[in-house]
């Protein structure tokens, strides 16, 4: 995903209402076809339960409180893991973008660690932490770290040097230069990192929860599989998709609020 793709997309948010509805036609049609296919027996419910069955399963779990509890646990893990990994990644990105010494000291090491797929560490992480909370948090934080680190670093390094020179000519101190020139200049790239990281955050959590957990959405899906409750399995998958979409939308709103100066976000 290039920077241009990600920043030019929100234009569609500005489109008139009718166009806003258009994007829902295809998903709704798919659900309708799916329902018809299930009811007529074209797709056996052992393979894929009807949307109405999935909704019913969701309703039951909601009433029992199990659904809310599991969503909350997953949400909490995702947020804390994201905060930890994101802050550390951001801090390293800043340090290595602003200081040659820091970059020389740590960048090579970090680039090497980056080449280890973090999910490959699951067996090791289970040995270290058991199936404790810290295992999931560690994996999410590790997964989130790199996109934020790399994009913060890239953002800072690619701030227009002419603007930096301008800031210096006009007597900005280092902290002013950072606040008024470098950080705002790096922000579009930082947001690209955040959006990448959100995707990785959910992916990591799903895998970690299905393999080693005693609560959460992934655990709920694995339990349901053991009892052949395919409607709950499908429900879990759909909720994951929904949460992912929510996180992405939240980051877009934040992006639009902070990058309103950017031509891609302006009303035309």
């Amino acid at each position, binding site marked *: 995903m290039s920077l241009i793709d990600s920043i030019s997309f929100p234009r569609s948010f500005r489109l008139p209402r009718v166009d806003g509805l258009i994007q829902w036609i295809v998903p709704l049609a798919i659900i309708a076809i799916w329902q018809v296919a299930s009811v007529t027996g074209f797709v056996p419910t052992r393979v894929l339960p009807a949307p109405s069955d999935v909704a019913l399963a969701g309703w039951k779990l909601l009433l029992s409180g199990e659904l809310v509890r599991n969503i909350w646990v997953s949400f909490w893990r995702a947020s804390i893991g994201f905060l930890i990994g994101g802050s550390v990644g951001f801090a390293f990105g800043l340090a290595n973008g602003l200081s040659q010494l820091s970059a020389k000291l740590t960048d090579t090491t970090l680039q090497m660690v980056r080449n280890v797929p973090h999910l490959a560490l699951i067996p090791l992480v289970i040995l270290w932490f058991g199936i404790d909370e810290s295992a999931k948090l560690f994996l999410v934080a590790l997964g989130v770290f790199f996109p934020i680190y790399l994009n913060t670093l890239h953002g800072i390094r690619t701030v227009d040097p002419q603007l930096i020179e301008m800031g210096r000519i006009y*007597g900005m101190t280092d902290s002013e230069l950072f606040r008024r020139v470098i950080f705002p200049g790096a922000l579009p790239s930082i947001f690209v990192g955040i959006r990448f990281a959100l995707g990785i955050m959910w992916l990591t959590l799903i895998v970690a929860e299905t393999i080693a957990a005693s609560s959460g959405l992934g655990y709920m899906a694995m339990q349901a599989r053991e009892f052949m409750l395919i409607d709950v399995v499908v429900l879990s998958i759909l909720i994951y998709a929904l949460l992912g979409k929510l996180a992405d939308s939240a980051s877009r709103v934040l992006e639009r609020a902070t990058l309103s100066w950017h031509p891609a976000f302006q009303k035309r």
Partner: protein
Amino acid sequence: MQTALRTSLPETELASRANFAPHARVVREERPAQTIGLPLSISGLRKSFGDNEVLRGIDLHIPAGQFVAIVGKSGCGKSTLLRLIAGLDKIDSGSISFGDEVRTEDIRVMFQEPRLLPWARVLSNVEVGLGRDRASKDAHARAEKALTEVGLADKRDQWPSVLSGGQKQRVALGRALVSRPRVLAFDEPLGALDALTRISMQRLLERVWRDQGFTAILVTHDVAEAVALADRVLVIDEGRIAHDVVVNTARPRERGSAELAALEGSILSHLLSADDRT
């Protein structure tokens, strides 16, 4: 013709001219007596980048408040000279001195690119020019005044991205002016503008220079622009000042007048002859 045209002045003559500056005095009498401009003396200035000897001994005196244009073929070192004057690069040898103690706010530069902060509104961009006074109480008022001077008061709350090229350059001019600089250096500030915008910007430059009395040093590749605006045109060739041409035509100048055209022609022929040698 009032125009004095000098070619390849020997150094001694340059030095005596520096103390004397009769032409500049004539020009300055047309302007308000209290000039805030600083005089500028450059002697034996050299600058190389690796093996590339760009400036090979520049000797120059600019009296306070003079409007000097610098022309020369591309790559002859005009920008380099300007950056040295503005203190943006290190001098190899020689010296540049202003007649007075200078603060950083006294010397401002305008580039071909406006270099506005895209994430700051027009008014905040102008406030950047206040330097250390940015935090002062009257910062807003001063920025607004500078914005009015460049005719963009109504754009104060816009993002730079919605402005035209000429408007962006005017914001950059407002930012350069807001600290009341005593020397203003321009590096082809109008180079990227269309012909009509250029002419209105030239008028604006001349007006603010006359109003404020700073010493102006304008690098341009447009000889017509140089003779229309400047008191004096310097031609740089082979790292030295090859010609020092005084433009005595009274202001306001009539663009395209025979007098300016003749001067432009003679400067162009200098530039072309320099080009033939290479």
